[in-house]
């Protein structure tokens, strides 16, 4: 039995200095263990939603909100960000915003959150070592976080969130500065965390990746959720283009060639689906083109 871990109840929010609302009547639930992707154009409210999920809105950002967000049975407006952070961790869009700016080394940076929790020193060392190896930053532990490259800081930011073992991890475009292979490695790690029971809410622009990883996809436009469902439901929706979102490239190239009778599926959303479907097409066509005996 899965239980509801996040409940966003008709939540609206407007930043203090803005005249338009950033989020408008957002309503959805996330079940424990789910991998949820939030997609949509820039400025649609994705990062605002992330800030709201972890309680930075309304506790840190000044503004006007309506409705409520319940995370692991706690109302985000009623508890402190610190208390919520025991349950839900956010990896910021700009990894430099994640740094404490009090640490001289990456190891100290990773110790920061553990220290605030009162984790004993010995346990801290082994935890830092374990996470650094997982995220492949063990060689950076003695370096100054401010001397790292953008991609390296992004790994450190992720590690500093994971090390606190949150039940829910909110990822706001957390691999934008990583090289293609690096971002694939990080996504594999996140997938593994998810398989081990951690609930993931991920904001992303890479539709190939969203289709591959997510259980549920929500499309957000002008602060409102306009479409939601499984990757199949969302990416096959005839309305998708209205929301400035394209399906994964695999969709169009397979849809074009799959005729009824080739296969049970008639489209692909992932690379492996696309390759195997198109291989079936090649086999079928090659057979049909053999000269009759």
């Amino acid at each position: 039995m899965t239980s509801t871990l996040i409940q966003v109840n008709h939540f609206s929010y407007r930043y203090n200095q803005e005249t338009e609302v950033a989020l408008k009547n957002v309503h959805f639930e996330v079940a424990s263990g789910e991998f949820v992707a939030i997609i949509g154009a820039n400025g649609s409210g994705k990062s605002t939603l992330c800030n709201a999920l972890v309680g930075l809105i309304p506790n840190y950002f000044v503004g006007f909100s309506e409705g409520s967000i319940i995370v692991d049975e706690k109302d985000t407006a009623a508890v402190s960000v610190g208390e919520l952070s025991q349950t839900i961790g956010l990896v910021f869009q700009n990894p430099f915003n994640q740094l404490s700016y009090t640490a001289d080394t990456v190891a100290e940076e990773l110790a920061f959150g553990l220290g605030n929790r009162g984790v004993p020193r010995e346990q801290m060392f082994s935890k830092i070592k374990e996470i650094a190896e997982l995220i492949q930053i063990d060689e950076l532990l003695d370096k100054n976080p401010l001397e790292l490259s953008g991609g390296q800081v992004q790994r450190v930011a992720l590690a500093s969130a994971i090390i606190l073992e949150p039940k829910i991890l909110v990822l706001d475009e957390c691999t934008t500065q990583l090289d293609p292979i690096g971002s694939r490695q990080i996504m594999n790690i996140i997938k593994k965390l998810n398989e081990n029971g951690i609930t993931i809410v991920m904001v992303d622009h890479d539709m190939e990746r969203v289709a591959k990883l997510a259980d549920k996809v929500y499309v957000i436009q002008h602060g409102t959720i306009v479409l939601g469902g499984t990757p199949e439901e969302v990416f096959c929706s005839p309305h998708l283009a209205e929301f400035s979102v394209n399906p994964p490239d695999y969709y169009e190239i397979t849809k074009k060639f799959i005729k009824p009778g080739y296969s049970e599926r008639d489209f692909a959303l992932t690379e492996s689906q696309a390759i195997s479907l198109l291989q079936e097409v090649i086999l079928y066509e090659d057979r049909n083109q053999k000269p009759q005996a």
Partner: protein
Amino acid sequence: MKIEIKNLKHKYPSGGEALRGINTTFEGSNPVAIIGQNGAGKTTFAKHLNGLLRPTEGQILIDGESISDHTTAYWSKYIGYVFQNPDNQLFLETVRKEFEFGPKQQGLSRHEINDRIEFISDLVGLKHRLSTHPFDLNATEKKFCTIGSILMMDPKIIILDEPTCGQDVEGNQRLAKIINYLKNNDRLCITITHDMKFVVRNFDQIIVMSKGEILKSGNKYNVFSDVKTLLESHVAPPPITRVGQALRLKDISFSKEEFIDHFTRRIHQS
């Protein structure tokens, strides 16, 4: 303008060797993409091209003149660098002031500055945001604000450090438009990016870096058919290209249209 880079090496004070002998030449206005793994030295290399960083060894010649002969402020008139992290570049209270700052330093007339603001703010999509505080912009608007403030100075060469970070469909189209505008106006645009879909759509020349060196330099056909280089530099071809390669199609595909064409030919061959 022509930039010649001869055996460029850079060592950081901490002792790390970030560049280990770069040799290349930039000329003309065909846009260039620099790709490669994190920590390969892409940003360090780019920061040398307008004098933000100085070579530990080797030489950079701009139209025959050594970059070391002048200050970074002098070169910034000719070569603009847009930082990877916009927060490192923005410091004024409004987008308009950010846009005015560079040309004011250059001594441009009020009239000329206003004309440029009109055009550039439209090109980067911030016309309606001119009186906004840069820190109230969202992440990609901030990036366009920094690009705009460099374009305002009309440099001959402009370096964009990871402009595709976090861009949506529309943002990437806007970037493509800017890169095309620069090309058509005889300005060279050098772009560092990890977005391979964006690379194959918009760049004639690609430089692949790995561990402080240039591993390969060429067009998309040379680069993305070179499996060994790709592996070594942590680069993966765009999704469509990978599917075409897995199916062993004769020609490499970079767009959906190309793929559909190549696959149609494959299934109709006999």
